[in-house]
């Protein structure tokens, strides 16, 4: 299945390319650790409603870029906006409330909470989360029932219904990845950032996670994900951005990226040489 160029057809395959309808725009973001620039991205646009893959060798700065734009890390310089509103220096929890939710490379399930509690926690705008309202059960009980129904439906969709009332700590690695995705959806985001959603997952579950990512797009979400497996990347993404040594060195449709000499140099070439 090669992705149909679709909405991204007018975009040029070069670093910093303008997109017809960008939902996320990153401008001059620099994050240094000591003297080393872990991230130094001149310009990057992410097209709304499409699946964009972020690839690059280890240490290319993919996760750091994720951390910066989601408020988990502070950039030294730069601006970035989501849906036309500036996000720079906004704390992580407010970024999530704006509609941009991320998952983590190492899953962060809440082990000593049940799977359904993991889900219910994630919903925003809960009345019962305010200190004083927490005492008045009738004030939050109806909302709680709605969340339970919504969470249960999402668990069903992700094939986790059987584990609904188990502690999340009893789930396997792959199930945790699924739970993290399902949980992120409880926030009702418009864009989701997945950091290596397939890492350490068995092949069967991998296929299932792939299908879920495609489903996210179909339900109207923008997906940006970090991945190492080029087969996965070419299979599901509409656009690929390649980073190396902190900067974007190439971007374009998956077919063009595979053939891009800069990408092969930085990433694929060394891999192939080793094999």
């Amino acid at each position, binding site marked *: 299945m090669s992705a149909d160029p679709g909405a991204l057809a007018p975009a040029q395959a070069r670093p910093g390319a303008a997109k017809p309808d960008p939902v996320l725009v990153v401008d001059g973001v620099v994050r240094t650790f000591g003297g080393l620039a872990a991230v130094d991205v001149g310009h990057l646009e992410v097209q709304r409603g499409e699946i964009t893959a972020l690839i690059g060798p280890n240490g290319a700065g993919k996760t750091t870029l994720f951390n910066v734009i*989601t408020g*988990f890390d502070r950039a030294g310089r730069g601006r970035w906006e989501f849906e036309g509103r500036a996000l720079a220096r906004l*704390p*992580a*929890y*407010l970024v*999530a*409330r704006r509609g941009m*939710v*991320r*998952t*983590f490379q190492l899953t*962060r*399930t*809440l*082990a*000593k*909470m049940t799977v359904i*509690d993991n889900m*219910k*926690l*994630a919903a*925003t705008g*809960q*009345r*019962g*989360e*305010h*200190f004083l*309202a*927490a*005492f008045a*059960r009738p004030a*939050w009980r109806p909302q*709680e029932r709605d969340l339970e129904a919504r969470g249960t439906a999402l668990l069903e969709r992700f094939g986790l219904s059987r584990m609904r009332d188990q*502690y999340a*700590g*009893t789930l396997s*690695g792959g199930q*945790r990845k699924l739970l993290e995705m399902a*949980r*992120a959806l*409880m*926030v009702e985001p418009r864009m989701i950032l997945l950091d290596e959603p397939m890492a350490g997952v068995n092949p069967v579950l991998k296929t299932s996670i792939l299908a879920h990512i495609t489903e996210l797009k179909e339900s109207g979400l923008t997906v940006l994900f970090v991945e190492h497996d080029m087969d996965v990347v070419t299979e599901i993404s509409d656009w690929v951005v390649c980073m190396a040594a902190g900067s974007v060195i190439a971007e374009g449709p998956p077919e063009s990226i595979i053939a891009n000499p800069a990408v092969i140099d930085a990433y694929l070439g060394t891999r192939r040489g080793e094999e």
Partner: protein
Amino acid sequence: MDTGRILIDALRAALGVPAAAYALAGIGLNVHYGYTGLLNFGQVGFMLVGAYGTAITVDKGGPLWLGLLVGVAAAVLLGLILGLPTLRLRADYLAIVTIAVAEILRLVARTRSAEPLTQGVRGIAGFAGAFYRVNPIHPGIYGVGDLRFSSRNLWVIVVGWAIVALSTVVVFLLVRSPWGRVLRSIREDEDAARSLGKNVFGYKLQSLVLGGVIGALAGMLLAVDTQFVGPDTYIAVLTFFAYIVMIMGGPARVLGPILGAFMFWFLIQGVNGLLVQAIDARYITFLHTTDVGAVQFALVGLGLVLLMAFRPQGVLGHREEQFLDER
């Protein structure tokens, strides 16, 4: 040996005001550590400001009720002062800062320059008369068999355990709410909570202040019971007794600290009575009665080690939870 007397003495200690105060300190710590995962090693600091807030206010001519309010307000303030700079940092920083601040508060209360307020090492006495004047229990001795309390004593005990019950209900209502769910998520993984739109810092601050206020109630209760506030009551070991109380009962269990405080005092007093009688009856000849104070704590410590080895989740804790770590 008179085992009946040992048991009665132990039971009296387990029902007494210090036990209620330890239960309160433990309930506060349970909010911090059990539910939110905050390492507060300075719970005694909250007890201190609660007690001193009350005593100083009355000493300066204020009414007792105002003193109690001042005690609570002081705990809120201390929670904010401790939390605002440290709660954004890693958990260990809070631990370091709280243990240091609690010790600094005690040392400042001792100093000569603080004497106009705290009366230094002499401390403040006799400020809770108003509390005993409203005692509705007729003078006399009440109780069953050998378990007897004076009406004065009974009045503090009833009020003390009523505050324990009230605090427990407050914690119960909070932790079963979505608010409590956010606290637990922070304990499990605060970055996950953040990624889901939760204001982690704000919740940690609320937790620190709430648990601190409950700790201040413990300090006020001890102060009212003894009618005395002095700096050397509020030593660091009180914080660790409160931790023992909370962990023995079972962290993140609403009734854990109550059971823990009861067991703690029952065991301390029971072991004490047992040792003293065994020495008197010459069953134990290698110890002197003056050693008992040290040996009882060693034995209780041994018991605690065994509890942690065989039941690390505490008496009321869920065993399965203990083994669910992040993979």
